[in-house]
């Protein structure tokens, strides 16, 4: 008998009736464990697949672009000479064009998208709410090449014949570098306008959902203070929705940075850094789309992969900044510093 067992204790336990005749069977408490473990493993595997794929993508693109980065160094980002024949590659015009066309798109699309969202969420009569929202969302469903065709056959001529002369001559903006130079049609401006229409549904649908999610009590609190409908929206609803709206704008920016087909068709595709929005330009995505099929030289291919990597980095940076902005405004609202 072991020391730890108090005397008489084991006898008592022995004398108690054993519950096995009507107690819970041990097997009733077991089972299912293997299923759970398999399920866990499968789910974890699938969940890890996506980030792994992303890392692999970064690695592959980076590896393929490495020779170009090595050869041209930092000059790859800042040189504007892109000469596949003499194997000189500088991506500055494409990087510049990517960023500028996206910024134009946001400048044009954001007020319009917010206007649509505010109208649909706050002012539209119920019967008009669904159709307007649906039609705006439908813009996102139109294939990019259709936007491109529309851009080539409708937008570019209109810009060339009417908008550009109007900006330059009627408004006398020709003196500023932004609106100077001849109006060819295919241009940074055309790309920006097409992109604006393409990103509009993203911004407006996010903004609309965010506005609809603002508690009714916030609107009522503002109205009860004697605010007009617009004052209530500006003073109570929009500040409450701010971080979500910024998120929507960044989503639109992400779309604009990567858009390929429509931009390629209207931007003019020229490797040149020009201040004027009337001048043709290039974007990273259209550069890759245009030259990838024809790139026979190793270094040319590597340079294309390298700009792809740069685009990747820009997008990542934009998203990181967006997260930070959203977090910043959200915590500003929350914290009591």
């Amino acid at each position, binding site marked *: 008998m072991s020391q730890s067992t108090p005397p008489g204790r084991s006898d008592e336990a022995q004398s108690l009736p054993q519950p096995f005749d009507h107690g819970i069977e041990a097997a009733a408490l077991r089972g299912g464990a293997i299923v759970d473990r398999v399920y866990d493993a499968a789910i974890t595997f699938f969940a890890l697949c996506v980030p792994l794929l992303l890392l692999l993508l970064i690695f592959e693109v980076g590896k393929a672009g490495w020779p170009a980065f090595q050869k041209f160094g930092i000059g790859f980002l800042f040189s504007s000479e892109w000469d596949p024949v003499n194997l000189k590659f500088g991506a500055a015009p494409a990087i510049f064009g990517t960023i500028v066309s996206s910024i134009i798109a946001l400048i044009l699309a954001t007020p319009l998208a917010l206007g649509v969202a505010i109208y649909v969420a706050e002012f539209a009569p*119920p019967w008009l709410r669904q159709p307007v929202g649906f039609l705006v969302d439908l813009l996102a469903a139109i294939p990019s090449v259709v936007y491109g065709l529309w851009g080539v056959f409708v937008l570019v001529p209109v810009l060339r014949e009417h908008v550009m002369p109007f900006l330059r001559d009627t408004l006398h903006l020709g003196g500023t570098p932004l609106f100077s130079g001849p109006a060819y049609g295919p241009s940074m401006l055309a790309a920006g306008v097409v992109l604006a229409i393409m990103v509009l549904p993203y911004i407006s649908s996010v903004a609309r959902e965010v506005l609809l999610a603002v508690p009714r*009590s*916030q*609107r*009522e*609190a*503002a*109205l*009860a*203070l*004697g*605010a*007009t409908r617009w*004052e209530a929206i500006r*003073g*109570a609803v929009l*500040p*409450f929705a*701010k971080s979500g709206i910024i998120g929507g704008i960044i989503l639109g920016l992400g779309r604009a940075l990567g858009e390929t087909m429509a931009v390629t068709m209207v931007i003019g595709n020229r490797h040149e850094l020009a201040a004027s929005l009337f001048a043709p330009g290039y974007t990273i995505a259209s550069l890759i789309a245009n030259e990838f099929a024809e790139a026979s030289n190793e270094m040319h291919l590597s340079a294309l992969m390298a700009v792809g990597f740069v685009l990747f980095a820009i997008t990542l940076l934009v998203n990181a900044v967006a997260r930070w902005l959203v977090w910043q405004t959200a915590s*500003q*609202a*929350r*914290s*009591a*510093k």
Partner: protein
Amino acid sequence: MAESILALTESRQSRGSSTHLREHRADAPVDLPTRSRVVVEGLTALFGATAAVKNVSMTLLDRRVTAIIGPSGCGKSTFLRCLNRMHETVGTASVRGKVLLDGHDIYGQKTNPAAVRRHVGMVFQRPTPFPTMSIRENVAAGLRVARHDDAVRGTVEEIVEKALRRASLWDEVKDRLDTSAVGMSGGQQQRLCIARALATEPDVLLLDEPTASLDPLSTQKVEELVWELRADIAVVIVTHNMQQAARVSDFTAFFLHGEMVEFSPTAEIFTNPLDPRTEAYITGRFG
């Protein structure tokens, strides 16, 4: 039966927590000069085709507190929301009848609802501070829109302080006026909302179950505040709590199924209700 309720409230008041209120009430000049401020004539409030308030007529006096009691869904909050035109901000809602504020029909053709609400302030059941604004900005929120033209008004600083003092919140927040209002307790948030409503100096203040989400101590503070406001303006308070109505009001209206069953001086409705339904309600037989 009814006497027992009053006895209950009396004994609650004499014991502990409400003593201060009672003293205050005893000190208050009960015979403040008054006049009719809001006259409601045949008011019916609808949601679509359903009437939530049916043909209610009553007069609300200046410098008096009027309580509206009744079971959930009796239309008391809807009625309140008709007094500052908040009711119509809900989709299918509509109003019939007249509400006269100092003789002017607030549902008149040329009346601007926003202007009405600048004169008739409102505090809701749940505290609704603006989360992106500081305490100071919250109190001043109504000033930006109200009475732009009033030259006699002091600086924003003074108005904010005065409003916070009236809401007996000043001492608690004076050192952190620029911090977010979200960091305050529920009771403080509600008093902040009252301060915000007072900053624009309304002539009538509507309180929609202002203490429903508050703890007893905060409730007591709000009740004391209501009694103090009585010195200046007309107050209408909707409440679930009959003891609260008995403590803070001069007049009490009892609503049931959208109708106003009884409207009497508070002392009378709790001691000698005219309608058997009122008696049933205040003695706790339903609702």
